[in-house]
C-alpha cells in the first residue's frame, strides 16, 4: 500500500463530497485514522487516480455502500474485555434488575457480538424477559448481519474463553448451534433486540435508557465530536442510569463529567 497516495487536502475534499452527496458527515473523525482507511480502500480497489476515486465515491450509489462499510471499522468480538462484562454482571445489571423494565442502547453495535453477549448475561440473571436492547449503527450492512445472529465458528473458542473469564456460568455452546462454518445464536436472545440505523453525528436522542453502551466507537472521533456525542447520551440516560465506554475511551475531559460517577475500575459511569 502506498501510504502517501492521498494527501490531507484530498481527504478533506473527499469527505466534503461525501457530506454533500450522501449526507454522511465524517469531517470530525480522527484525521489520521480516517485518512488511513481512505488510502487503504483506494489501494484495495485499485484506483489509478484520485480524480477517478473521487468521482466514483461521489456518483456511484452502489460504490458508496462499500465506501461506508470500509471506511468505518467494524472489528468486534463477543465478551471483548471480560472484566468489563464481569462488572456489568455483578455491579450494574443487578441494580437495573430492581426496575420493572430495562431499556438498553448499544450504540455502534457493528455486527452484533456485543448485543448478543449482553443478552446472554441478562438471560443468566433472569432479566432478559423484561429487557429491550436497541442496537444501532451507522452502517446498514453490519445491522443485517447482526439481525441474523450468526458468527464465524472459528472465533467461538476465543469467545467461550472470554465468556468464562467474564464470570459466565453455563456451557457456552448451549447458546448456539453450529451450522457449517457459522454459529447460529439462540433466537431467544435476539427476540429482545431492536435493530436500527442511527448516526451518532447527525441523529437525535430517540428514547431514555437505563444503560447505554458505546464501546470502541468514539476513539474514531475527534474531541469536539466526542463531546457532542456525550451530550447526546446525557440527554438519553435516565437519572442513575449507566454509560459504558471502550477500554481506551473516557468521559474525563467532557465538561459535564462531574455529574457522573465512575463504577470501580471499569469504563462505566453512573449518572448522578
Amino acid at each position, binding site marked *: 500500500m502506498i*501510504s502517501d497516495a492521498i494527501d490531507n487536502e484530498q481527504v478533506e475534499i473527499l469527505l466534503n463530497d461525501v457530506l454533500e452527496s450522501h449526507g454522511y458527515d465524517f469531517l470530525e473523525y480522527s*484525521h489520521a*485514522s480516517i485518512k*488511513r482507511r481512505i488510502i487503504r480502500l483506494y489501494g484495495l480497489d485499485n484506483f489509478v487516480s484520485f480524480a477517478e476515486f473521487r468521482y466514483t465515491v461521489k456518483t456511484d450509489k452502489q460504490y458508496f455502500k462499500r465506501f461506508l462499510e470500509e471506511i468505518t*471499522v467494524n472489528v468486534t468480538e463477543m465478551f471483548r474485555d471480560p472484566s468489563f462484562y464481569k462488572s456489568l454482571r455483578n455491579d450494574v445489571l443487578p441494580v437495573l434488575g430492581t426496575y420493572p423494565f430495562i431499556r438498553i442502547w448499544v450504540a455502534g453495535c457493528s455486527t452484533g457480538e456485543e448485543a448478543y453477549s449482553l443478552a446472554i448475561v441478562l438471560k443468566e440473571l433472569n432479566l432478559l424477559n423484561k429487557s429491550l436492547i436497541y442496537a444501532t449503527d451507522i452502517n446498514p450492512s453490519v445491522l443485517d448481519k447482526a439481525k441474523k445472529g450468526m458468527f464465524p465458528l472459528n472465533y467461538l473458542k476465543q469467545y467461550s474463553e472470554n465468556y468464562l473469564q467474564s464470570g459466565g456460568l453455563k456451557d457456552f455452546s448451549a447458546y448456539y448451534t453450529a451450522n457449517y462454518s457459522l454459529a447460529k445464536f439462540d433466537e431467544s436472545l435476539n427476540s429482545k433486540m431492536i435493530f436500527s440505523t442511527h448516526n451518532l453525528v447527525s441523529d437525535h436522542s430517540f428514547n431514555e435508557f437505563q444503560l447505554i453502551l458505546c464501546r470502541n466507537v468514539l476513539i474514531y472521533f475527534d474531541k469536539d465530536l466526542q463531546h457532542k456525542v456525550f451530550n447526546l447520551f446525557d440527554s438519553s440516560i435516565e437519572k442513575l442510569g449507566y454509560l459504558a465506554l471502550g477500554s*481506551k*475511551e473516557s468521559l474525563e475531559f467532557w465538561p459535564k463529567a462531574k455529574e457522573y460517577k465512575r463504577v470501580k475500575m471499569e469504563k462505566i459511569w453512573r449518572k448522578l
Partner: protein
Amino acid sequence: MAETVDSTPCGALIIGGSAGSLDVLLEIFPALRKDIGFPIVLVVHRKASNESLLTDLLKSRTTLEVSEAEEKEFLSPGKVFIAPADYHMLIEEDQSISLDYSEKVNYSRPSIDVTFQSAAEVFREKLVCILLSGSNADGVEGLKSVNNFGGRVVIQNPNTAIMPYMPQQAVLNVEPHLILDSHDMADYINKLNG
C-alpha cells in the same frame, strides 16, 4: 553528508521492534540521557495478554517518564509513549495520539507500519525511526514513507539482531540513513537534538 542531516532537529523518535527487540530496548533505556528533548514512541509486537509487562519493565530501567499511550494524549518531549497492546497507534497533525482497533496489519496490532506511516507526514524531516529485531516484515513499508517525507531511517544491524529477518528486509527495501549495532543505539539517540 550524514553529519549535516543529523544536525536537523529531531521532533520525534519512533522505535519499532518485534521478536528479539526487548533485549535491545533494555540495553538502550538505562543509557539514555535524562534530558531527552523529543518524545520517544515505542511500537513493539507482543501478546495482548501481557498488557503492562513492557511498560513496567522499561519503567524500572529509566528515569524518563514511561507510560502506555492514551487516546488523544499529546506527544511531549522527554516522555516515552508505548503503543498499547492490541491497538494501532497513529499520530495526528497536532501531534496527538489516535488509537485504532482495525484489522491487523502484517498479522500485527499494533503495527509498526501504521505508526511510522502516520508520523512520517506529520514530522517530515524531523522524524527519526529505528527498526529493531523481528521475524516478520512489519515496519518496512512504514520506513519507505519516512524516507519519502525526508525523515531519517535507522536500522539495527541484522548481524546483531536476535531475529534478523525484519531488519534484513528493511535493509533490502529501504535506503537507510544508518545501520547501527545494538550497542551503538543509545549513543546515537543521546546525540540527537531536540
